[in-house]
């Protein structure tokens, strides 16, 4: 492991960080990429449809296996994102479902465990696949676990963390408006829930020596509601609170998408990444014309790392056309930062297809990605969400690239 830690810090003659690729995974992209002392793992999911317990074990076996490619294990995993599908009754039943899934997850997790987010989605990556996990492991020792006193806690004992400070980076676990027993508070009051979640985020930041101006990415999973319009109305209320809470002008990149939430009565979950060395906004040519969250930067540079927020090309065009157009905007953004597709290390693509596009959606998306992005490409997670924020929007992607 230590040998890799040293090796991964080397740079080639162009100044690009040396990177090592794991084997190709089910989506056709590397299961993991090791670079600059970190291991990025793409979406791991079960190969066969089965019950949630079996699929959870298979996904975590995949995660472990991916980490082991670089002599890492679960104790190095500091950031974990879980996407799960639950199609039963609402309310308490979904919490019970999450607890059963988590009992399996606990067999794999180290203690202390990663800063984690779990979002209820429609397909992981497609319906039938009930769980997908991805994450970031840090090879070097010395990370600081952050567990603020003023925070919420899970409904069952878990080793999850509210945040991890590594070097100048804080990985924030998903923050929700819940009490110490994991029960939602301010039920049905979306603005108040947003204030509480942001307060918890700020607590993690300050305990790690950061502040709002260091926050680099913000991801908001909001209650999707019965329609995209209803979901967007909820998101607008959340964003109004974000604007009043996070003082500008240094705002994070933003990614927002409609999901269902874990605990009964929850309207949102927010996570993110904070980096002290965030330096400058990247303004790609033409981005003034994009339909996007206008207050937030398209992408932010933090040292050699580029964090790209929720890119999309909403409208009336098909899933494949929107995917290609979004990838094109990704390319323009990378280029503006002096990078290219080859610098990508992680790409997360969320999709919300029309029904007639849904069956072949994952194949459509992976084909488009491989058409544009040269092999071996980044680690990739693909997740079907309930809806996305802009009219007609079918695709949204975010990415991390490293020089």
């Amino acid at each position, binding site marked *: 492991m230590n040998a890799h830690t040293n090796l991964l810090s080397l740079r*080639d003659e*162009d100044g*690009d960080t040396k990177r090592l690729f794991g084997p190709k995974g089910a989506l056709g992209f590397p299961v993991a990429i090791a670079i600059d002392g970190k291991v990025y793992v793409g979406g791991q999911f079960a190969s066969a449809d089965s019950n949630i317990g079996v699929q959870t074990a298979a996904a975590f076996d995949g995660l472990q296996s991916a980490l082991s490619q670089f002599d890492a294990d679960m104790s190095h995993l500091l950031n974990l994102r879980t996407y799960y599908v639950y199609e039963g009754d609402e309310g308490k039943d979904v919490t019970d479902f999450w607890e059963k899934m988590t009992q399996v997850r606990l067999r794999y997790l180290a203690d202390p465990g990663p800063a984690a987010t779990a979002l209820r989605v429609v397909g992981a990556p497609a319906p039938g696949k009930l769980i997908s996990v991805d994450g970031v492991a840090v090879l070097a020792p010395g990370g600081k676990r952050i567990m603020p006193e003023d925070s919420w806690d899970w409904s069952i004992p878990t080793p999850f963390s509210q945040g991890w400070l590594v070097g100048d980076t804080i990985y924030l676990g998903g923050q929700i408006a819940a009490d110490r027993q994991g029960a939602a508070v301010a039920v049905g009051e979306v603005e108040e829930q947003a204030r509480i979640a942001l307060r918890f985020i700020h607590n993690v930041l300050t305990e790690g020596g950061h502040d709002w101006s260091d926050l680099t990415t913000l991801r908001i999973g909001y209650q999707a509601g019965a329609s995209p319009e209803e979901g967007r109305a909820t998101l607008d209320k959340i964003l109004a609170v974000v604007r009043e809470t996070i003082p500008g002008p240094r705002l994070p990149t933003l990614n927002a998408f409609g999901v269902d939430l874990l605990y009964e009565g929850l309207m949102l979950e927010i996570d993110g990444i904070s980096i002290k060395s965030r330096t400058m906004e990247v303004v790609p*040519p*033409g981005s*003034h*014309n*994009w*339909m996007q969250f206008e207050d937030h930067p398209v992408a932010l540079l933090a040292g050699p790392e580029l964090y790209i927020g929720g890119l999309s*090309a*909403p*409208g*009336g*065009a098909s899933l494949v056309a929107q995917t290609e*157009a979004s990838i*094109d905007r990704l*390319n*323009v953004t990378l*280029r503006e930062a*002096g*990078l*290219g*597709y*080859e*610098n990508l290390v992680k790409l997360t693509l969320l999709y919300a297809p029309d029904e007639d596009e849904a069956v072949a959606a994952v194949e459509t998306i992976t084909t488009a990605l491989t058409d544009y992005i*040269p092999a071996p490409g980044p680690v990739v997670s693909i997740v079907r969400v309930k809806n996305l924020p*802009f*009219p*007609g929007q079918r695709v949204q992607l975010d990415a991390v690239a490293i020089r």
Partner: protein
Amino acid sequence: MGSRKRPSEYEVVSYKLHYRTRNPQAPYEQSPNLRMNEWYRKHVFNSPLQHPDWDAFRDPDEVTYRAYCTMQDGQEQYVDGLLNAHDNDKHDASLPEAWVDTLAKIYTPARYLLAAGQMASAYLVQMAPASTITNCAVFQEADCFRWLSRVAYRTRELANTYPGKGFTENERSYWEDAPEWQGFRELFEKVMATYDWGECFVALDVIALPTLDFGFLQPLKTAAQGQGDTLTALLCGNHARDCQRARRWTAALVKQSLDVKTNEEVISDWVAKWTPLAENAIATYCAGLPGGSELATKASASLATFKSELGIAKD
């Protein structure tokens, strides 16, 4: 790790695509005495606006055909949403009657204004000395057509709700005779009769289209908000995005033009020539709106600010 060293998609599909600039004697091939060749030599090669390398121009937004379709697909979807939502809410039926009369007079005739903007842009498309400039004018032309279509759609909607108000019937007579439109009509019709490509560019993109934004869209938006007409206000707001993009490439082209010292006076003279027409357009149009005097002052100030940002001294 080489793709960053390759030309961008914008460069590949936009740069140096005109054949008409290859032969200074016969831009359109055949005899140099061909009418089209004479026209192009006179109004482009011999224009007072000169630059040794117009092909060096780059659209700051790097809009390509594909990028244009993608971005406007999103904007059109947004506008569709606005129209559907307001239709569902019976928005038009809730408008004050006096405001409906105002819309009939000072909003729906705007399709003639936008058609003039479209035609003037089309001339620039045909004349511009570099394909990167032509592309910007092409998308500007498409923007005008986009909003011409939307105004026509709104005209039909308003006619459906108010069959006795003359919507779909009186627009042409208002455009030709109503005092509110005569400033804009004179401005745009004179732009359309301006054949020198450089003057056409300055008259259209430095003066006329910014005046359309500052002196038509913004005052109409403000007045609509005051009347509870959120739909018209939101449509004006979305239209203004296209105008902002046009001003970005206009500013870039003026900046490049000012590389040549003599162009400063050329452009300043044209600006001085066209500004009174713009001021008249603003004043006459705003006079038809509630609070028109204040709106006109603000519009004139916005136009003056834009001109000063371009670094054009004379006015």
